[in-house]
Each structure stands twice: as C-alpha cells, then as structure tokens.
C-alpha cells in the first residue's frame, strides 16, 4: 500500500465517523480540513537552472516570455534575444511562425524595417553590383518553395556532459517551415561572379556594440562558391506563406537546406562575393566542430590542443517523440498513438523505429507525408502498454544515406551536433 493509499483510507475513516456521529455537514467539515492538510497535487515552478548534470527536461527551463509576433515562448536570453519553442508545437510537420524559435547573436536587431529604403545588395567581387527592392525580388525572379528544417547548432546543448557554456537549449531550438523566395544562384548570375572568387559572405541587419572588425560588431557567415548547397539556397521572403516575423529575419533570410541555422542569415541585406577566404570570428573561431566522427571529442584532447576543427555544416539525423510527453498517466490497456518528428540534413528520413526494451528490439513506425528531403517528417505508431508501471520508449531514425541515429552521446567544446537517441518515460496507471 502506497503512502497516498494509506492517507486516503484514513480520511475515509474520518468521513465515516462524521456520517455516523451526526451527518454529512460535520463529515464535510472534517473531510475538507483533512484534505487541505494533505493536498495531493503539489504545484511548483520548474528549477531555474540545471547542472552540473544533464538537463533532464525536453525543453530548457526558462520562464515563458511574450515577444512581438510570438506566442509565449521559453526565454533563454532577453538581450540579444534567444527563445525556445515548447515541445507541443512539434506535433505538426510545419512549425507555426509565431512559435518558431529565435536566436540572435548581437543586441542591435531591427524593430523597424522601412521597405522604401531597404535593398538587398549583391556586391564585392562581381561585375554588376545589384541593389534589389522587395518588389524587384518578388517580381523579377521566379519564386521557388522548399520545406526545410532550421536547427540551431547548439540545439540540445544542455544534454552535454560535462556541461559547456553557451545557450542552454533543450530540444526546441529547431523548426520546419515552407520557405518561398528567390534562388541565390539566380541573384549571383545576374550580378556576375568574377572568376577568381572563392566564397560568398552574408550579412544581415544585426550589429553589436563591439569594435569594428570583431565578432561583437558584426555577425558574418560565408559559404564556398563551389559548395553544391549553394544551388539549393533560397533568399526567402515567405515563411509558411506569411511574411517572416521580425524576430525570424524580416524581410528576407537565407535558407541553406540541410545546414545548421548559423548560415541562415536573418534580415539578409548584403550578399558579398569574396576573392579571399573569410577569416572573421564567426567563421574562423566560432561554429567549428572537431574534424572527427560525429564531431566528438573530450575535454582532455581539447585542452591538449590535439583537436583540429572545421566549420559546422549539415544536420545529423534526429528523431523525437512529441506525445506522450510524460505530463500525464496513460491507463493500462489503452491503445494510444505515439506521435513525433524526424529529420536529417543528409537526405530524407526513410525509417523511424520505437523500442520499449532499451534498444534490444525495434518496431517500425508509420511515416507521415513526405514534404521533401530537408523537411520534418512526422511519424506515428499505435501503442498499448501491456502492463501498469514505468515504461521507457526510445526513438531512432535512419536517413536515406543509411545513417542510423546513434545511442552514444557527443561532446565538443561548442556544444554542437547532439543527436543521441531520445528516451521518454511513460507512466502507465492501473485502469481498474
């Protein structure tokens, strides 16, 4: 008999006494004082930070905050703004714009964009520098649409052991949208890239208080002109068929399908063709991963200077159980539907499996609609808990390159590339 059961019967005896000795009124009086003294559901706020162990929650632990054009999202930082999307917004393949996570690097981010003045500049090592207004982008170039996952390089950073400094994201620094805009290659063609060019650099409207030439002044990212991902890049002016929220990069942002969000420059305003490698802080120092399998290393090798690093690129395969989320019990014997999402930056997810025996055996889930290789793919599986108790479900995905989501953790100093198999405890209660 559990503690809860015992107190329940004690109260029952109390009540019975009340009825016998003079009726319901006394019983209710005695009963409610007994109940008030032992409130069964304790309500308390989540802890304000996690660590030194791994964050045990699906999301990060910050409070909710109401930002412009957004539903309440989980606050990581307020200035510059970093907001995480709560778990339940991932029930669908496309993440609503108003719930889409936010991550800026510098505090000078736009509150106002005047489209009378705003022009997308294509400059640098080109034959015909361009300055295109939004109507010119929308009318002079063929619009293209593509579904693609935008995931922060540091998504799930709070899982790493030992913990590393940085934005302590749970799993919600990701989102999927249908992006519509202009092909980057079409813009570069009109501008005429000179033959000795090496890279193309992207700059948005954000800037910081730091000295010129440093990472605290401008956030700059570059891609090699020979990188095939450039053929798939879009300069997007629509996100899920809507103008981009200011916090997600109004009026246009770069979409780099399959790549981490660090390259998806928000409020993109300067596209600069370079004839020498970009050596600014955000390329040379930040957003770099160990040149090892899965970007994995350890603090000792890092400290010893043994680790060669390369710029972060594609999203490793991941999958998530979105519901049930562990917030409520499931009655034993009830047939429920497990729901989740999966994605990979290396090609479409073609298998999602669920294990309830710690990864010994795996059962295939049904995949939802295919929105293209870079989209979230929803999955579902009907599931019945055979017995009352605590069950742990694990989910893993496999992409079309045959890469299976691993069950080993990752560690690197930047807190990047976490993609270990996720687990969720489900409490199944007695149904009678």
């Amino acid at each position, binding site marked *: 008999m559990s503690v809860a059961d015992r107190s329940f019967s004690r109260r029952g005896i109390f009540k019975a006494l009340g009825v016998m000795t003079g009726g319901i009124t006394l019983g209710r009086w005695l009963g409610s004082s007994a109940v008030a003294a032992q409130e*069964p559901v304790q309500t308390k706020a989540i802890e304000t930070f996690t660590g*030194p162990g791994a964050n045990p929650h699906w999301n990060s632990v910050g409070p909710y905050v*109401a930002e412009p054009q957004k539903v309440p999202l989980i606050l990581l930082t307020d*200035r510059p703004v970093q907001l995480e999307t709560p778990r339940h917004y991932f029930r669908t393949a496309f993440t609503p714009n108003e719930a889409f996570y936010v991550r800026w690097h510098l505090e000078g981010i736009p509150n*106002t964009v005047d489209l009378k003045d705003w022009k997308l500049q294509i400059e640098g090592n080109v034959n015909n520098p361009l300055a295109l207004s939004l109507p010119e982008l929308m009318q002079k170039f063929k619009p293209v649409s593509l579904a693609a996952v935008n995931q922060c390089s540091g998504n799930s950073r709070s899982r790493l052991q030992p913990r590393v400094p940085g934005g*302590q994201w749970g799993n919600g620094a990701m989102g999927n949208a249908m992006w519509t805009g202009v092909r980057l290659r079409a813009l570069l063609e009109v501008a005429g890239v000179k033959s000795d060019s090496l890279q193309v650099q992207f700059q948005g409207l954000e800037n910081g208080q730091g000295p010129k030439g440093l990472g605290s002044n401008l956030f700059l990212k570059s891609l090699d002109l020979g990188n095939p991902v450039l053929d798939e890049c879009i300069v997007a002016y629509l996100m899920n068929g809507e103008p981009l929220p200011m916090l997600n990069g*109004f009026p246009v942002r770069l979409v780099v399908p399959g790549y981490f969000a660090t390259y998806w420059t928000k409020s993109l305003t300067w596209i600069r063709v370079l004839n020498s490698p970009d050596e600014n802080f955000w390329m040379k120092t930040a957003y770099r991963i160990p040149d090892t399998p899965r970007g994995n290393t350890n603090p000792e090798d890092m400290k010893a200077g043994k680790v060669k690093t390369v710029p972060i690129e594609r999203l490793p395969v991941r999958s998530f159980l979105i519901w049930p989320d562990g917030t409520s019990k499931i009655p034993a014997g009830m047939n429920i539907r497990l729901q989740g999402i999966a994605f990979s930056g290396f090609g479409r997810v073609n298998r999602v499996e669920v294990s309830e025996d710690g990864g010994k055996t795996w059962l295939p889930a049904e995949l939802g609609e295919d929105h293209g290789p870079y989209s979230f793919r929803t999955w579902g599986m009907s599931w019945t808990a055979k017995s009352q108790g605590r069950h742990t479900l694990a989910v893993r995905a496999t992409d079309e390159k045959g890469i299976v989501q691993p069950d080993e953790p990752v560690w690197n100093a930047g807190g990047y590339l976490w993609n270990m198999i996720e687990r969720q405890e489900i409490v199944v209660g007695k149904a009678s």
Partner: protein
Amino acid sequence: MKKRVLAIFLVMCGLMMVVAVVFADLKKGYYRPAELGSLRQTALIELSPDSNYQVSAYPVPGADLVPGDGRQEVQTYCNTCHSPIYVTMQPPLPAATWEAEVNKMNKAYGAAIPEDTTQKIIRYLQAHYTVENRTP
C-alpha cells in the same frame, strides 16, 4: 424480512454518501494562489499602411544576480553587449571556465574591461556560479 431489506437499504445509502463525500472532496475544487498577470498579453501596436514594418520593443525581464562584491561591475560592463541573464542561464561552471569566458569577452569580443575590474568580475562569477557555490 422487510426490516432486513430496509436495514440493507439504509446501510447502502450511508455507504454511498460516505463514498460521495470522500470522492467529491478529493477530486474537485483544488485551487492555489497565483500571481495575477504574471505573463500579460501585449497590446497591438498601431499599424499604418506605409512602408515601415515595425514591432514593439523587445522585453527585458532581466536576471537576479546574486548579491556580492563584483555584481555592480557585471551589471555595468557585461550589460554593454548582453543582459546578465547570460550569466544566470548557464549551468554551474568550473572556476577556470568562468575565467576563460571573461577573458574571451576581452580578447575575442574586444570588451576592453580594465584589468582590475576583469579580475573582480571573474572572482564574483567564481564565488557564486560554480558547482561548489551556486544556489537556486
């Protein structure tokens, strides 16, 4: 016989009442005090059909830095580029990591914090935000 039926009936009624009272009190009507408007909706801003696309100011709820020697310096110098929530969001970090973080602000980001203030900020962070001394 009739008496027995009546007695059983009365006992049943009594039991049902007991059950009803017990369950009613346990199952319903629990509320707790809470802060009114802890997350208020924001008012719509005035929209005019011109070429300006605008959102309201971004809220800065701030962070409660632990009182102590050096807090004022953190609030002044670090706040130039980011709010102090960048400190409180972190997990407890080793003392050496805090030192490296502050030095990174000076070297990589050009914070130009005077040397004695830099040391004071490092000591403050090491005194309150490591595994050994961080308090909820």
